[in-house]
């Protein structure tokens, strides 16, 4: 670390939804990149390789540990999607008022949970 006075960092701030949504955007995005993309490519390559490779993929994907990974990835996808849409709004210069910022931060996180639950409900129901 630099041997000079540093500006106050993570430790001293009071938590707010805008901090959490920002951190979760990075966590879910990097999770998708480091775990989601290998799984996506594995799935595509399994389809291209034939029934045996695909069934092997499916046996892992539908096992309990596989479901944990897939549900986690689907949450990461919907979370990154919702907070990404929030970023598009912020990029236009809107939503910086404290109340609006707080509302959209909480809304995007709840939206992600709702979409994840709805997605799996639809998958298991039909």
């Amino acid at each position, binding site marked *: 670390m630099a041997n000079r006075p540093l500006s106050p960092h993570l430790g001293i701030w009071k938590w707010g939804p805008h901090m959490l949504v920002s951190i979760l955007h990075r966590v879910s995005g*990097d999770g998708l990149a480091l775990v989601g*993309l290998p799984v996506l490519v594995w799935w*595509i390559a399994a*389809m291209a390789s034939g*029934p045996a490779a695909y069934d092997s993929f499916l046996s892992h994907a539908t096992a309990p540990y596989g479901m944990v990974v897939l549900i986690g990835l689907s949450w990461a*996808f919907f979370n990154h999607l919702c907070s990404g849409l929030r970023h598009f709004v912020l990029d236009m210069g809107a939503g910086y008022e404290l109340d609006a910022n707080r509302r959209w931060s909480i809304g995007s996180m709840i939206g992600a949970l709702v979409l994840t639950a709805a*997605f799996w409900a639809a998958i298991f129901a039909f």
Partner: protein
Amino acid sequence: MGNGTSIGRVRALGAAGHGTHHWLLQRFTAAGNFLGGVFLVASFLFLPDASFATMRDYFASPVPATILALFLISVFWHARLGLQVLIEDYVHEAGNKFAALVALNLFTFAGAGFGLFAILRLALATTSLGGAA
């Protein structure tokens, strides 16, 4: 143009003109990810099951195969840009940062290249098999 301080070395050279390039590409690819992601989620919801025959027949047909290929390019590009920022934020030692960025480029180009090859094989091989059956 001075050569003492770091600001003196760049003063009067003017803006490079691509300061927002990385930022904009992150947005362009985000739009592509949005469209492709919605397509993929909708496909999973509307396909009757996850069996090999169902998935293969669907994703080997021209339009889904094309969208999947474009989605793959968009997400890998977006991931490369995002992970680059992660590395630049947390890896401070110059040598380690360089090594991490090299590894990142290899990972994303190899992943996207392999994925695209698989989609091509899927789409082309299935056409001839379908014709025979």
